[in-house]
């Protein structure tokens, strides 16, 4: 290597070094707080960035049929939402209140007339992405994010089929979802033009600060019915025992329960068991009466406690019962004893 060649190389290397320094200098100047935080990896962003917007940005490619959706629905959804999405037992109904005419107009008529008893999901849904995204991120209730992309498409399609928006032989996919959006019964039933999103916006209801002789007469138009006075429990027990006022004793005539709450019930409440179980009717899981009928006299409390603590699946249907985090062995036994006694 000649001297001049060597010099040129050295100059180039120095140039590169300078460029590198400049670059890193620029990067450092960007952060006011060096040493805090780090870049997210593409895999990390992919793992968490699951949102789907009304323009379907973020929607994963895939498809799912109504038929497949029915299978998933019956296994994982129907226990809370009813076979036809009509159930009002655990959550408000998903299906109902929309018509073929609504699909044409994009406005749900029952919302205007008010002659449907309850607003269902399909009556409110203006963007299909909201339904897809919600099922994908939050369902099933006790095992969110456990559905595959195909299952999410399929369940979405099945719900729309239950609402007579899609035929039984339909397969919903990222390719046709925009056309399906244009069949939503309430796609035109939304409004974002109001003063209640912008902090500088103007409210739509006005009052004036009148100070004297503001009303000609004052009429009580609504008051608490007598039967509702104790509906929230005895108000005497919900107010401080000293000070300017006392709570009214609303339980004076109501019968008092002399029975103390069973410790097993307290464990059930504390560990969110009652989110999926009820004493005498099926919710997501079986009723405690049914569990008692099946196991009492056959399985002891220790065995049942172990099963509760480990979680179980397949015994009462396909929805698994996850292991309750933080349920101690002793608490599990108390709980099991309570269940085996018929959850008194």
């Amino acid at each position, binding site marked *: 290597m000649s001297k001049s060649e060597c010099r040129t190389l050295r100059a180039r290397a120095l140039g590169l070094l300078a460029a590198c320094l400049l670059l890193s200098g620029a990067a450092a100047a960007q952060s006011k*707080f060096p040493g*805090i*935080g780090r*870049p997210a990896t593409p895999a990390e*962003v992919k793992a*968490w*960035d*699951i*949102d789907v*917007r*009304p*323009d379907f940005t973020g929607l994963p490619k895939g498809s799912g049929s109504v038929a497949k959706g029915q299978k998933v629905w019956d296994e994982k959804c129907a226990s809370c939402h009813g076979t036809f999405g009509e159930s009002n037992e655990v*959550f408000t109904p998903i299906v109902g209140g929309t018509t073929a005419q609504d699909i044409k107009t994009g406005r749900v008529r029952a*919302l205007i*007339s008010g002659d449907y008893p309850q607003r269902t*999901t399909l009556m*409110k*849904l*203006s963007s299909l*992405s*909201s339904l897809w*995204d*919600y099922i994908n991120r*939050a369902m099933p209730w006790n095992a*969110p994010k456990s559905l595959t992309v195909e299952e999410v498409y399929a369940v979405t399609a099945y719900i729309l089929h239950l609402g007579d928006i899609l035929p039984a032989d339909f397969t919903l996919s990222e390719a046709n979802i925009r056309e399906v959006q244009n069949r939503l019964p*309430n796609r035109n*039933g*939304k409004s*974002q033009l109001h003063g*209640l999103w*912008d*902090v500088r916006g103007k*409210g739509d*209801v*006005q*009052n004036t*600060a009148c*100070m004297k002789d*503001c*009303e000609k007469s*004052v*009429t*009580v138009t*609504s*008051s*608490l019915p007598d039967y*509702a006075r104790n*509906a*929230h429990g005895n*108000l005497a027990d*919900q*107010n*401080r025992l*000293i*000070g300017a*006022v*006392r709570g*009214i004793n609303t339980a004076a005539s109501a019968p008092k329960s002399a029975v103390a709450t069973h410790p097993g019930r307290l464990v059930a409440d504390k560990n*969110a068991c009652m*989110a999926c179980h009820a004493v005498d009717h099926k919710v997501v899981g079986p009723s405690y009466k049914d569990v008692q009928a099946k196991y009492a006299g056959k399985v002891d409390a220790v065995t049942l406690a172990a099963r509760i603590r480990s979680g179980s699946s397949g015994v009462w249907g396909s929805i698994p019962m996850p292991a309750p985090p933080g349920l101690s062995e002793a608490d599990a036994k108390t709980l099991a004893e309570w269940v085996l006694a018929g959850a008194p």
Partner: protein
Amino acid sequence: MANQPPGAIRRAPEHFLGPEQIADVAAGRRGFLRSAFLAASAATAGLASGAVRAADGDPAILNLPMHTKGLGQPVAARPYGLPSRHEENLQRRESPGLTRVGAASVSFAPLQGLFGIITPNGLHFERHHQGWWDIDPAQHRLMINGLVKEARVYTMDDLMRLPSVSRMHFIECGANTGMEWGNVAVPTVQYTHGMLSCCEFTGVPLSVLLEECGFDKKRGKFVLAEGADGSSMTRTIPMDRALDDVIVAWAMNGEMLRPENGYPLRLVVPGIQGVSWVKWLRRIEVGDQPWGSKDEVLHYVDLMPDGTHRQYTSIQECKSVITTPSGGQQLLKPGFYNVSGVAWSGRGKIKRVDVSFDGGKNWQTARLESPVLTKCLSRFNIGWHWKGGPAILQSRAIDETGYVQPKIRQLREVRGNRSIYHNNAIQSWKVSESGEVWNVQV
């Protein structure tokens, strides 16, 4: 009496029976009972006024109690302090029948017993969509992605090294007072207004993090906040809000957030309904359009009389309520009362609160206690001489934009009665001649 533990409350009527009388009862001699009960009722009335007077004075003064004559408890007997056992009536409570599963439900703060403007952490209202968790803070991460130069990840260690702010703000669920759109439905202020709390929150301004990640100032018009729980709650926040006063918070009232309130990290979005204050916050995404999430399209939408749903109705407009005396309470006896309540506005500071004692015919301006802060509860007080007659108490707040809290009929004229959300109507409490206070609408 000697065996009575210090400070124990004995309930009527036994409290008013002397040892001889108790012996009489034990021996089956009951002839005196009627007069004893009359004495007991008189004593109850006496208690209410503060003292049971014997001939030579008040036994509470004359008979020195154990706590004056004995040795009290040592320090750190309760390493994490608890309220007095005499305060256990003030608790968060559910409204029976409102929801069917406790993990997608709400518990209401007992506003009827709270003072000032700060909600104690253990009494802060709860609203969960898919249950609450006590998350390991060492494993918690916040990601910022979307229209940013560099998507970034922060640990709690990272976030808590950043320059923090501490600010007092109210949080109110958009559905607060929602049960009262059609008619009176619930008995007390806990259930009419208890999806309301107010804390001093500490955290790093969201604007600091957005700047750090180099957010796209041209196209970045909205941010999405997302929770780490099963529901992974998502809510859209306009960029001008996000850059204004939104805080990524880890503390409330001087300690870390409570698990029920999003430990270890939640978003604080002052003036905006509680659903946007995403708990267990795991991600902020910058975008150019709103996300239309479940809680922006299917819930937290206001049904109008023409059948349309208003989406993104987020601002909690100016509102107030009298907390003492309030529904389900009993005034002790005629005389002076300090009528007290709270007022708040999602658009700024409270300017004035007026109170009416005649159902809105005539109004007087109440005293606003300091501090009066933006998007924060303000406490108001006004003296009242109750002469024993019927009355209807109301409060009406005005915020710094000049907006006047509306009457329920004014709200219904514009929005009908099926809206569920954003009922900020003037609340009426009817006082009967007997001193009972009940929830009414006029």
